[in-house]
């Protein structure tokens, strides 16, 4: 099966973000960029499917040249090759989805795996938009993918409010990964060495003929209202009495 995995670099989610003084963005100096955790899960799933069904795993990202580093991380996990569509960082979800649709068509992918959400913009959009643009079935928030015997369909279990839901999708389809789909492997040292030599095709976004004018523009960022926490109580008795008479919530 030929699987395309869309990945996005994000600032290391374990570091606290600082907003620039003028609100124009976040401070990225000294912040490590990593593969969006949900995209790592998508890469892992693609590798597992390839291990079972054979085929090829192609990683694709839409963004600046520097994304090569995170692309190489995905190649080090075991993906076969990569496409980097070189573009600015101001593309919105619609633009990214339209660009990805071109790559999907070009590559004749039979399955597209993505993360459910990038943890910087927290949009949770691109996979579903891509499915619409391609006119393909979608299964978002996947925690399990099981292929039918003929590999023409898959049952996807989705993490939804209220529990779990299973839907059947005909392939080709777009599936977005939730946290419980798998646990991504670490790249091995030989994997990292090999990744340096794997093919990475760089495609200028302009060559794809997609209108990428942003339709959703982030004008500025501001810190959220600060919470005055840090209060302490000595024991359960004090806690309960304060909840009752001070906070008045009991």
């Amino acid at each position: 099966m030929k699987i395309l995995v869309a990945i996005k670099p994000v600032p290391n989610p374990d570091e606290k973000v600082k907003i620039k003084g003028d609100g124009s963005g976040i401070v990225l100096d000294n912040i490590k960029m990593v593969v969006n955790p949900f995209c790592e899960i998508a890469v892992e799933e693609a590798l597992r499917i390839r291990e079972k069904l054979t085929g090829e795993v192609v990683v694709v990202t839409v963004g600046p040249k520097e994304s090569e580093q995170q692309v190489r991380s995905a190649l080090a996990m075991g993906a076969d090759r990569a496409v980097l569509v070189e573009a600015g960082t101001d593309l919105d979800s619609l633009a990214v989805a339209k660009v990805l649709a071109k790559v999907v068509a070009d590559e004749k992918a039979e399955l597209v795996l993505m993360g459910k959400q990038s943890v910087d913009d927290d949009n949770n959009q691109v996979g579903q938009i891509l499915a619409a643009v391609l006119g393909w079935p979608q299964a978002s928030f996947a925690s399990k993918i099981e292929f039918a015997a003929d590999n023409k369909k898959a049952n996807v279990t989705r993490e939804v409010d209220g529990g779990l839901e299973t839907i059947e999708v005909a392939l080709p389809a777009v599936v977005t990964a939730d946290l419980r789909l798998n646990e991504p492997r670490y790249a091995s040292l030989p994997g990292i060495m090999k990744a340096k030599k794997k093919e990475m095709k760089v495609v200028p976004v302009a060559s794809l003929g997609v209108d990428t004018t942003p339709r959703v523009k982030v004008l500025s960022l501001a810190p959220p209202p600060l919470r005055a926490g840090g209060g302490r109580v000595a024991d359960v008795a004090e806690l309960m009495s304060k909840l009752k008479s001070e906070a008045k919530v009991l």
Partner: protein
Amino acid sequence: MADILVVVEHQDGVFKKNTLSAVSAAKALAGLFGGEVDALVLGDGVAAVADVMAGTGVRKVLLGEGAAFAKYLAATYAGAVAQVVKAKGYGAVFAPASTFGKDFMPRLSGLLDAPLASDIVGLEKDGDALRVKRPMYAGNAIGTVELVGSPLLFTVRQTAFNPAAMGGEKTPVEKATVTAEAGGTAFVSRQETKSERPELTEARVIVSAGRGIKAQENFKLVEELADQLNAAIGASRAAVDAGWAPNDWQVGQTGKIVAPVLYIALGISGAIQHLAGMKDSKVIVAINKDEEAPIFQVADYGLVADLFKAVPEMIAELKKLKSA
């Protein structure tokens, strides 16, 4: 501006209250730029849901029914909403930022080539322009966003907009003609997390447990405390990943966003991703044996203690309070 459509969430005919926050957000937009707010109910045999919506102060309720809508599917919903939007010329569409809205609204965005702002927490007018507020970076930044095009699409963070009142004077329910195209998808099954407790996103009190609870059987203790408080139960990702709690109990950036009157965190360290889901709660209690745990930075009442000692004491105190 043109009229506004709210897509109603229900689970197999049971109305979901998070729709009421989407109604409020839609009304906020109408208040700023004009237009009337209508609601769309899709399903099969869901006249009761339309009837509930008719009492929420919308101009009218459109009811699109058919066997193909009996089970929710992103393709049928996005397709039907697109038909209604085109037929009636709606200028904006709102839905809750639940796994329902987050699933079909981006698909609608792709179908209509229309801009979508996810998980919005505010709408403002700046001169003639609409400015949308939405959290980014796990809630560590609030973005001000501009949307270009039409219709404008929004999913609404439930905790950010007061729910519209229910049970008001009934407005008309109209039949909407919609066709369903499942586009290669089919519903197979649903595994509901059974619970007698209030829903996480609607509860006044939430008791949440993390890795510190150590084992599934220890959730009994959490349940006992929740019983005393008529609380919903939440969990950190660590507790869900360990299989001690169902996935839909996860509170956080990528789980449920909650803002109850009282949130009690037991054995939860307070990672950025967890805080993103609960730091707007009115009162936060944290019980953790590590006094350096970051959860204490957002807690109003932090107790450094072993939860296995503290929670039974709390349960005893609450029982005393009740009988007093």
